[in-house]
């Protein structure tokens, strides 16, 4: 089971320049806020996909749920 730190590290590695805040109480449900300039100009669906793609194959498995919020830095 991934820790919050591991999820954070993987997001920040997967999306260069991203800053992620990750919270979890049980290491299977994660609340994640990602701020990245890479999101600029993308629809929310595309922003979410950038993050979800990092965990391809794990969602619904080791990671039960990832509640995701994406932001473009101002």
């Amino acid at each position, binding site marked *: 089971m991934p820790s919050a730190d591991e999820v954070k590290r993987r997001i920040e590695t997967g999306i260069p320049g991203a800053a992620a805040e990750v919270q979890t109480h049980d290491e299977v449900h994660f609340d994640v806020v990602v701020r990245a300039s890479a999101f600029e100009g993308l*629809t*929310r*669906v595309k922003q979410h996909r950038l993050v979800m793609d990092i965990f391809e194959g794990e*969602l619904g498995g080791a990671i039960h749920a990832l509640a995701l919020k994406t932001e473009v830095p101002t």
Partner: protein
Amino acid sequence: MSDNEIRTLIAQAIDENDTILFMKGSPDAPACGFSARTVAMLQQLETPFAAVDVLPDPRIRQELSAISNWPTIPQLFHKGELIGGCDIVTEMYENGELGEALGAPAQSGPAPAPAGAGPAPAAPMGIENRLN
């Protein structure tokens, strides 16, 4: 019915309905909290939408996710584009973007609803019905 035929029907439904929600259960009887919340937001905006229940056949969900490249249910589409799931719809609802994106009367400005505008049509698309 083959998986391919189901996929074609789903693609058609997305194409033929301006706003369409794939959900668990029906708008009147949602079978999941995320679907229920999404329906409630759409109803709050008084925007008409078609709804398809993915539960009657697991292949509906399987083929839908293959088309949309989106893993979870619900999924809201407008004019053929995936708007998002419950999280995105909630965020857009809260900051006013949802009504704008859907051209809904309740958030897109002071324009009154046209006379005789009724409530959203109940699930004109029944993929599950065509599966029988």
